[in-house]
């Protein structure tokens, strides 16, 4: 009885399903697909809109002189260095986010419903505040005469110099992007069957064994989602590095911004395009590597 009913409802829904899909398809086309095509178009054309590989080439070949610590200067590939630095900081931030978020998500998922809600609110609250305000707040905290150092001095501890270092940039990124790591992990762990954990303990696993052999592999889809949602914005971040890095760590996001501000749209588009391709390839590789694991079959 009930079976038949749901099946019939499902069929009726099919036409209206496509009807409701319509506006979203249009939206996706005009605001996602078309801009992407424009980015690619700008990336491969010069100021007169003739086809050229000049901008792509410039990204890979442009060089500049940097002064090393011993005073001698050295020639480096400008944009490759910037890109590598962006990637490095983004990966560090993502790993830190994962390490912080994973236990937190697990504790949240196993807590009482009321505690879960409280945790959730606490994690969301920073997201209600403006991104600029948050970054400025971190500046005040981390400055050499900032809150952190005042606090340390008060307890007669040696002060620390953080502002203007890579550590400061990582702290800023972790703070901003942590919720995007916690939420997907939490949602997948909340769905996990407690009986599976009991079964693993029953079959000889101690606490670490349960984590390694059951919880971690089952949470991988959440890990991938979280990593994607943190890695991508942190690779292309630009404001945090300017403020917390004292402008010393020019990142790919900053490079794109400065080219854009200098009205050099084609080169900005070329950099954005390369960044996009690299990220797509990274994500694709990660999906393939973990999909096999999640499927279970070898």
């Amino acid at each position, binding site marked *: 009885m009930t079976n038949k009913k749901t099946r019939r409802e499902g069929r009726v829904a099919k036409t209206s399903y496509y009807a409701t899909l319509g506006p979203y398809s249009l939206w996706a086309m005009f605001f996602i697909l078309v801009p992407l095509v424009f980015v690619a178009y700008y990336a491969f054309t010069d100021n007169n809109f003739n086809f050229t590989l000049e901008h792509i080439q410039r990204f890979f070949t442009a060089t500049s002189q940097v002064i090393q610590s011993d005073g001698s200067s050295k020639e480096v590939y400008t944009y490759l260095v910037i890109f590598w630095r962006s990637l490095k900081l983004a990966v560090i931030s993502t790993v830190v986010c994962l390490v912080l978020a994973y236990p937190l998500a697990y504790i949240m998922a196993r807590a009482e419903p009321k505690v879960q809600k409280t945790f959730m609110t606490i994690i969301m609250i920073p997201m209600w505040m403006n991104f600029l305000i948050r970054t400025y707040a971190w500046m005040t905290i981390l400055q050499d005469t900032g809150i952190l150092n005042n606090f340390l001095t008060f307890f007669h501890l040696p002060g620390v110099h953080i502002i203007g270092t890579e550590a400061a940039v990582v702290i800023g990124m972790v703070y901003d992007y942590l919720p995007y790591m916690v939420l997907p992990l939490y949602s997948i762990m909340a769905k996990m*069957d407690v*009986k*599976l954990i*009991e*079964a*693993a*303990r*029953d*079959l*000889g*696993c*101690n606490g670490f*064994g349960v984590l390694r*052999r*059951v919880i971690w*592999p*089952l949470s991988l889809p959440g890990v991938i989602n979280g990593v994607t949602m943190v890695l991508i914005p942190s690779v292309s971040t630009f404001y945090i590095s300017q403020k917390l890095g004292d402008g010393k760590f020019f990142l790919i996001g900053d490079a794109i911004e400065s080219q854009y501000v200098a009205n050099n749209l084609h080169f900005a588009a070329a950099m954005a395009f390369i960044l996009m391709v690299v990220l797509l390839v990274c994500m694709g590789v990660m999906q393939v590597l973990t999909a096999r*694991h*999640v*499927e*279970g*079959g*070898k």
Partner: protein
Amino acid sequence: MKKIIELKNITKSFDGETPVLDNINLDIYDNEFLTLLGPSGCGKTTLLRLIGGFETPDSGDIIFLGDRINDVPPYKRNVNTVFQKYALFPHLNVFDNVAFPLREKKLPKEEIEEKVLEMLSLVALKGFEKRSVTRLSGGQQQRVAIARALVAHPKVLLLDEPLGALDLKLRKDMQVELKKIQKQTGITFIFVTHDQEEALSMSDTVVVMSEGKIHQVGTSVDIYNEPVNAFVADFIGESNILDGVMLEDYKVRFSGQTFQCLDKEFMKNEPVDVVVRPEDVDIVPVEQGQLTGVVTSVTFLGVHYEIIVDVNGFKWMIQTTDFVDVDERIGIELEPDAIHIMKKSEYSNLYGDYSSFSNELDELSEVEEEDEDE
């Protein structure tokens, strides 16, 4: 026979007030198929979880081969569990699920392969090694769960209503198969169920529980033929439970008549509960009957008819292969061995006659029970 598990004065409560288990004492022997039987909420699953190590008793001791194991974590106990909904690892295929406990023990690869394949052939799943467990039928998942729990050769296998999710036919097959596996492996099985038929057909020993207490421990035949109180008599099979008075040894009076019976050692004129199983009642012509009554309903059940007979206002259930008609007046005869006498207990007046009996209602309440167990 060797005692493998001893439960001594086990008490457990989840809210600190109502006991889920109330002073449980039970010995479990080597190579035994023991069933914990009772309605939902009787504490049978909690008792199983105590033995598995997932709960600790508030007081009392769990003795495993002479050692107290109250605080030993599950992974150090030589006991494995087949969970109610199987709890197979969805990220592993059939082979890896079964190999799971062996890999934890870091056995050599060849040995793992050998043992897993041996187990899979025991549960008739050879050739399914590479299959994902999410693509198996309920019965096949059940077999994987059993193989996984048995592969490390535990001393005791705990089964928590493992057949509950299977349809009737498959359930019957698995009952036979489980029994066979138990005989083959010689491992003690502790089986939890609320299905009395399942319990009777599979077990060496049946433990009947309700409200956190053990009522009776015995073989299937003992439990069925010699129930200790009205609860057990009512829960196991169908029973006509009547108020009676024990006049003297071998002589009991109920329904206004005096009957010969096989029970003795009661006080003179002691009030008792009298149990008569529906299949032990003989239908005879009215003039030969010790009791007479009017048939009020007849249900054909294939093997036999189930009829309800009104004898002076008390409705008896009788199972017979002879056809009788509704409103027919019939005689009833009871052989001495059809009558079982029980001492009065707190359950004596809870189970009346069959005046409100309905098969349909019975099935409905059973489905609800299964949901409650979740």
